[in-house]
């Protein structure tokens, strides 16, 4: 084996620093959280309410994002039209928005005094301070993570595959469903995992738009923040639970994705 060159050492050094910096807080949460506290936080009814709410709302949000986002990303990836670059930028904008700005924006658009607040009210729909509002906030902040990945995935699909599918008589819809989606599968799954993780961790926009109320709008991050002041060990324990759930979710989705698509590709 060749001796590691100085450049390799630099790369390894950079990775080590990156790894240390990014994993330290997560490791610290688990080191500080005693197993007994973890168990206690899992039996605290308010924490369970928050966990249930977080899982349900983020699942709904991710569902909406995948159903609407997949075809939208496909269109952006496969068609060239005027203003496309602008469109892509607009869609990705929430990625770089601070959560507080997202919250203000949602209030300005969909709040009772917002642009569409009156119309929503007339339709009998109230989003602010409701569970539906949580879903809206999560969808808004998480969607770009999926859209970006999905678009990149569709762009990486060899256009000749899509052409072949059409030549063989499959319609546009069938080509999308049976060729493009499986081919872009790993990207879609990766995007889904990212979006889900982001939705689970959402704090600022939820607090501003949906408020914080146990069982209705208080998701796990909001419950953690509330506990921070009253019961740090409980906050720590709940954080550990959230990290574990997010990590498990990411891992499951990724493993599921790779195995399924590998089998598909092997056929």
């Amino acid at each position, binding site marked *: 084996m060749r001796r590691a*060159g100085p450049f390799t*050492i630099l790369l390894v050094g950079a990775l080590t*620093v990156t790894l240390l910096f990014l994993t330290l807080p997560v490791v610290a949460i688990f080191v500080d959280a005693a197993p007994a506290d973890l168990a206690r936080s899992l039996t605290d009814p308010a924490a369970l309410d928050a966990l249930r709410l977080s899982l349900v709302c983020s699942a709904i949000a991710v569902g909406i994002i995948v159903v609407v986002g997949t075809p939208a990303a496909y269109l952006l990836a496969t068609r060239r039209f005027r203003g496309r670059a602008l469109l892509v930028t607009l869609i990705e904008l929430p990625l770089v928005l601070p959560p507080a700005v997202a919250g203000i924006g949602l209030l300005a658009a969909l709040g009772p005094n917002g642009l569409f607040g009156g119309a929503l009210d007339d339709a009998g729909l109230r989003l602010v301070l409701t569970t539906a509002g949580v879903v809206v906030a999560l969808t808004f902040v998480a969607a770009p993570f999926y859209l970006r990945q999905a678009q990149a995935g569709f762009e990486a699909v060899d256009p000749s595959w899509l052409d072949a599918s059409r030549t063989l008589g499959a319609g546009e819809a069938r080509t999308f469903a049976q060729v493009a989606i499986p081919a872009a599968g790993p990207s879609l799954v990766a995007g889904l995992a990212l979006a889900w993780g982001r939705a689970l961790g959402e704090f600022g926009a939820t*607090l501003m738009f949906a*408020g*914080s109320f146990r069982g209705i709008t208080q998701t796990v991050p909001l419950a953690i923040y*509330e506990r*921070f*002041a009253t019961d740090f060990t409980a906050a720590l324990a709940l954080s550990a639970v959230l990290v574990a759930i997010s990590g498990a979710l990411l891992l499951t989705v990724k493993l599921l994705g790779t195995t399924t698509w590998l089998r598909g590709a092997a056929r």
Partner: protein
Amino acid sequence: MRRRVAQNVDVAQRKQRSSGRAAAGAVALLLVAALGLGACGGGGDAKLTVSAAASLQRAFTDNDQGARFSFAGSDELAAQIEQGVRPDVYAAADTVLPAKLHREGLVERPVLFAANELVLAVPSGTKAITSLDDLARPGVTIAIGQRAVPVGVYTRLLLSHLPAAERRAIDANVRSEEPDVGGIVGKLTQGAVDAGFLYRTDVKATKGALEAIRLPRTLRPAVLYAAAVVTGTKHPREARAFVDGLRHGAGARALRAAGFDPPPRR
């Protein structure tokens, strides 16, 4: 162009040995940068860092004095101090939290510096809500402070004096429990809720967007503000001067201008 690239590669190859040291240097640099970032918050200069209740924001920023402020719920700030965050001064919207930190040896003896008043706040022009009784009607939406933040503590204290049925009806109308007064003000000004419990000074600071409905004198909890110098501060003299100023100096004037009362004489 290509030649220049080739030259660079050549130079790079010749410099390979020295770049080993450069690599180590780069890693060291990263670490130093990280340490440097840490030092930024450490207050290497004479600037005071003041952790203050969110309701003090207007009064304190109006009386800047070049201090750095961190505004949040008094309970969050106290928890930060308990977790090792070290501002120079802690100013809370109650006396319980500073007293607790003092018992824990984290701050010096707290000093009362202002009084405030809990009020029922509604968006200006609200006709439907004129008293506490209106909050018990079905369909009215309310925002209050979380359990541990002073404004939430005072609100619960107030509500606990009400007849049980009325209290339950009001509890059922609460739609959000906010981490600090800022959240309650936001929910009210955005029309997300019909009413909320705030301090008189918070309502004044909205410059007419909200109006205050005074609460019956017998129910009103005493809202007192206490500040303390944080133990082990690097700027003890400036920190003490800041706290004194809240009672007698420019800080006190800014507090009066913002609508705070002087602390009761003991």
